[in-house]
């Protein structure tokens, strides 16, 4: 099996010695070339996890490999865009891109960065402080993609954009990523923004990964049942069930076929799958085989 873009085992981060664990017992694997949605409610630990992946936050425990290396060693191969899209306000777009070139000698694609800026009809002489939110995101994205990363980490990149800017930027981003085979992780608490764009999914809640794997496989591993109130077989994991009078709906794992009973069985939509899990904190975590971490490097200690 080729090197995973990300492999985390028992990853944890606690701020301060007695603080709450922002990320805990977090284990998953992300194969290369995927466009992965990192979804979860606000405060789930998405930003902390991304910070760890980017090498900005030192894990309190656990092991982490990015492109087979520690995040610090993988710095040439990864790019990170924080939620605030921080850029120097006094720099022009041109100077900002020059900065990307200066800090990534030898593997900066100036043409690509310039193309992304141009697709947004931006004048390179404009100062960053004069840009709108969407334009700023575009420049920040150009800076990330100009670096030609193998792994691109985006923290809520589209949160403050209008739908048109969001659609255009997402289109540019996916086209660039698709062409270069870049693995992308996009965090968001709004699912609609990512549906259709992502073929891989990580659902994070309370610092843990609750669902991980190919979107298709996660969906087909679940079934949405509806019918008269019936006992569901003991071998079936029930994520969530709701009874309305004599009618009942349930989201279950297809871990024991056949499901039996007098059910109407359909595959849930992504939204139904995620909402059911978020409403049912007791439901066990599920990782598809490709999302299961292989042993990182035996006895490699805390990856730092």
């Amino acid at each position, binding site marked *: 099996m080729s090197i995973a873009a990300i492999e985390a085992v028992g990853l944890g981060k606690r701020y301060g010695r007695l603080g709450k664990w922002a990320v805990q017992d977090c284990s998953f694997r992300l194969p290369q070339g995927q466009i992965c949605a990192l979804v979860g409610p606000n405060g789930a630990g998405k930003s902390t996890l991304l910070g760890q992946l980017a090498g900005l936050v030192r894990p309190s425990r656990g092991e982490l490999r990015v492109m087979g290396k520690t995040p610090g060693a993988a710095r040439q191969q990864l790019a990170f865009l924080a939620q605030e899209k921080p850029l120097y306000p006094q720099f022009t777009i041109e100077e900002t891109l020059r900065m990307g070139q200066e800090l990534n000698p030898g593997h900066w694609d100036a043409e690509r960065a310039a193309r992304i800026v141009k697709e947004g009809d931006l004048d390179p002489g404009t100062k960053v402080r004069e840009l709108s939110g969407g334009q700023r995101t575009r420049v920040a994205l150009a800076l990330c993609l100009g670096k030609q990363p193998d792994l691109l980490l985006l923290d809520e990149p589209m949160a403050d954009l209008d739908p048109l800017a969001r659609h255009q930027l997402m289109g540019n981003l996916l086209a660039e990523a*698709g062409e270069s085979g870049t693995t992308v992780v996009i965090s968001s608490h709004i699912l609609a923004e990512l549906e259709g764009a992502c073929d891989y999914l990580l659902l994070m809640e309370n610092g843990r990964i609750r669902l991980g794997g190919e979107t298709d496989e996660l969906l087909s591993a679940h079934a949405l049942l509806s019918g008269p109130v019936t006992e569901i077989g003991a071998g079936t994991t029930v994520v969530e069930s709701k009874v309305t009078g004599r009618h009942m709906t349930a989201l279950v794992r297809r871990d024991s076929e056949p499901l039996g009973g007098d059910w109407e069985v359909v595959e849930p939509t992504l939204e139904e799958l995620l909402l059911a899990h978020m409403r049912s904190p007791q439901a066990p975590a599920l990782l598809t085989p490709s999302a299961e971490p292989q042993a990182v490097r035996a006895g490699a200690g805390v990856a730092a």
Partner: protein
Amino acid sequence: MVEYRIDRRSGVATYLQIVQQTKHALRLGLLEPGDQLPTARAVVEATAINPNTVLKAYRELEREGLVEARRGMGTFVTRSLGAAQPADSPLREELRKWAERARSSGMDKDDVAALFTSVLDQIFEGEQG
């Protein structure tokens, strides 16, 4: 050239929407052998869907022998869907007459569509769209 419209709420898998829309264009003669499909990049930029989805759809069309990927040039239509009927074909004429009869019998558009679909489903049962 076709332009794909992706409906995220339709419940139909995105790659299937691309396959179906391509076939639709082939049937209507909007795409003919030798025509180029939009590049995956162009589709992704326009629709903001996953690039792998577009590639999957194109591979499916290729597997069905409808298109062919030429290295470094793009994806080209190799075969039209021959069953497509020109606007003045006898079958179309028959269907038009049938639809007029349905309307004069008091059915509205939805009734006619439902009837038509249910007959189609019955006749083509077991075949993939």
